[in-house]
């Protein structure tokens, strides 16, 4: 009997492990009276999360070097949320109630941002997410403005990301490579639902017929069945919507020599470490991103990138730039409001109109269904598309910024088939 009990206790423990229990939050620094404090809540052990706190700290250092906000310095307090909604909410409460931060920059996971949003409303805390893309975040602001107006999205929402995919696919795949068909392959997450819906609507208009939409569990490690299913449909391009996964589907695409172009949005592929993580299997992968090394989208891009490399020793993930801009937008709003009153900060945030690192930076207004989300467009932030080419992230779209041509490994036969 004893063993039977051990089996049950062990099974419980194993299930707890599988569900990823454990962990806690800890603030990085104690508080002081003078400076304006901004909380940064993200997952420090993820490259995308680490770039958030690093970008925010870089922005604070730059603002402070130029005299701070109305004479007060900005201080960043970093909290690790392990990408857990519960940890993030706890850190948020602590930031607001104990550490008395005046604004929060948080998370790259939509589910976490959606958990934090009601707390931003309750605690009247100006909050911006530098990467979470679910349109629900800004929809809530639109539907219940008085309550949720404290929330901002500092990166493109999923419907706009879908537009970016379609706009670039039209230029790159349809016009240059004469492609006609696509399959959508997305992880099952909050941000990909509106992304898929958007792509299903706009890809046909861009000239790509959508043959199928395949959604899979973000815990998936073996992508062979998915690639087989897709291959049977003979599409010219796979438009991905992946962020929780990235290394595995890319390596398996390469190792199994799936003969179809991999495009769309692969958030991990935007990491500068992705080439090494995949041992070069990334060669030929196309993805949407914020910018690439050496590309001057605005006069701000290159100096900030150089500072980042100098301070942290590597080029940031795109969240390094969006977090930098988020802190600058918050500081600018506080400066113009001459106050750290949350309602005044929000009113000024709405008027944000600045040269960001990734483009002209501002938010949609109350009439837009995506109130307080980052504006998309050629005059605003349009994002860029890049391709991994022999260890380098090469910018391939939009054409006026990136004249480079696409190059695919020889096993990607859909490129030649479509051209015929």
């Amino acid at each position: 009997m004893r063993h039977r009990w051990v089996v049950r206790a062990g099974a419980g423990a194993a299930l707890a492990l599988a569900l990823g229990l454990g962990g806690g939050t800890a603030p990085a620094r104690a508080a002081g009276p003078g400076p304006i404090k901004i909380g940064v809540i993200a997952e420090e052990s993820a490259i995308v999360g680490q770039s958030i706190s690093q970008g925010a700290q870089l922005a604070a250092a730059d603002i402070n070097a130029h005299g701070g906000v109305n004479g007060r310095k900005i201080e960043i307090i970093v909290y690790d949320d392990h990408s857990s909604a519960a940890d993030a909410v706890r850190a948020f409460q602590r930031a607001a109630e104990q550490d008395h931060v005046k604004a929060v920059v948080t998370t790259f996971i939509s589910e976490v941002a959606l958990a934090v949003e009601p707390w931003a409303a309750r605690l009247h805390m100006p909050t911006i997410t530098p990467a979470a893309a679910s349109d629900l975040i800004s929809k809530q602001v639109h539907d219940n403005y008085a309550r949720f107006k404290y929330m901002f999205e500092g990166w493109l929402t999923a419907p706009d990301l879908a537009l970016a995919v379609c706009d670039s696919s039209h230029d790159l795949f349809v016009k240059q490579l004469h492609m006609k068909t696509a399959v959508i392959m997305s992880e099952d997450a909050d941000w990909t639902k509106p992304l898929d819906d958007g792509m299903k609507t706009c890809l046909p208009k861009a000239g790509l017929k959508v043959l199928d939409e395949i959604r899979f569990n973000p815990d998936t490690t073996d992508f062979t069945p998915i690639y087989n299913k897709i291959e049977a449909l003979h599409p010219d391009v796979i438009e991905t919507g992946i962020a929780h996964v990235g290394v595995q589907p890319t390596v398996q695409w390469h190792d199994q020599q799936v003969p179809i172009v991999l495009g769309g949005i692969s958030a991990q592929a935007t990491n500068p470490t992705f080439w090494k993580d995949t041992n070069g299997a990334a060669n030929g992968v196309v993805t949407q991103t914020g910018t690439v090394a050496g590309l001057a989208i605005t006069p701000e891009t290159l100096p900030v990138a150089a500072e980042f490399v100098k301070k942290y020793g590597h080029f940031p993930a795109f969240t390094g730039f969006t977090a930098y801009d988020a802190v600058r937008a918050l500081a600018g709003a506080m400066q113009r409001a001459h106050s750290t009153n949350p309602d005044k900060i929000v009113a000024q945030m709405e008027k944000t109109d600045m040269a960001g690192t990734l483009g002209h930076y501002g938010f949609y207004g109350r009439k837009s269904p995506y109130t307080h989300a980052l504006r998309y467009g050629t005059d605003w932030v349009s994002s860029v598309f890049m391709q991994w080419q022999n260890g380098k992230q090469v910018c391939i779209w939009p054409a006026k910024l990136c004249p480079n041509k696409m190059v695919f490994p020889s096993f990607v036969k859909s490129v030649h088939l479509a051209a015929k």
Partner: protein
Amino acid sequence: MLALQILIDGFAISALYGLGAVGFTLMFGVCGVLNLAHGGIMVIAGLVGWWAAANYGAGPYGGAAIGTLAGLLAAYVTYFVVVRPIQRSRTIPRAEEEIFLLTGTLLWGIMIQVGSDYVFSNNPVTMRAMIPGVMHIAGVRTPRNEVLIGIVCWAAIGLLTLLVNRTRLGKQLLAASINPRGLTLLGFELSRIYLVVWTIYGLLAGLAGVLLASFIGVSSANAGALTASAFTIVILGGLGSVPGSLIAAYVVGYAETITAYLVAPTLRPIPALLILVVVIYVRPQGLLGRR
């Protein structure tokens, strides 16, 4: 065609599951230790192997060797720092030793996970395939590396079977699993046998870790899931039964692959959990369990 695809794809993944689980079940059978740090040890092997290959030019084979040794080292640390002190403690009652071992290895597994989070970040990494390229098996395009993994797994499992069934040392292991007290009465040193088991276990878990890293990649975040998957397989097969674990590995591997191909890739992890629940209710001793 689809059936053949499922057969080939499921074979490699099941072989890998089997390799990961045999050491785990051997450990329980002989030493009575359910090592909940199992996934952590596999992850260390994969991460260190990747790191040696990517940053120090160890090459795919050098990386695999270094990774396997790292797995062995991690197993030794688990034994000497976590398990042996509990087994030797005079303050822990014998009756409670198992729960202490469970808790101890569980906590150690979490420490490994958080530690490798800190050192390597939780970004998944993959080791370079030992043999690149693809081959066609009856029309199914299969990566050569996948075939190699299947062969290596079965070679390792075959060697283990030979060791257990054909050598003097193996007989001692079997005896220790059936009647440890009898073995000590015959003048054998149990702690020496335990050390042998931990060595075998470390090599198997390390090898499984590097093969996993070259097949589907590893990340510190996988540690818990890998332990859970080994646990599911071992419970299904019968705790302590090596052949049971192998059968169970194939049941779980194929159940997952068939679900992914025929139902939906999203539901892939579900059958393993359902099987675990059913087994605990209906046949807690597992398919070939002795206890």
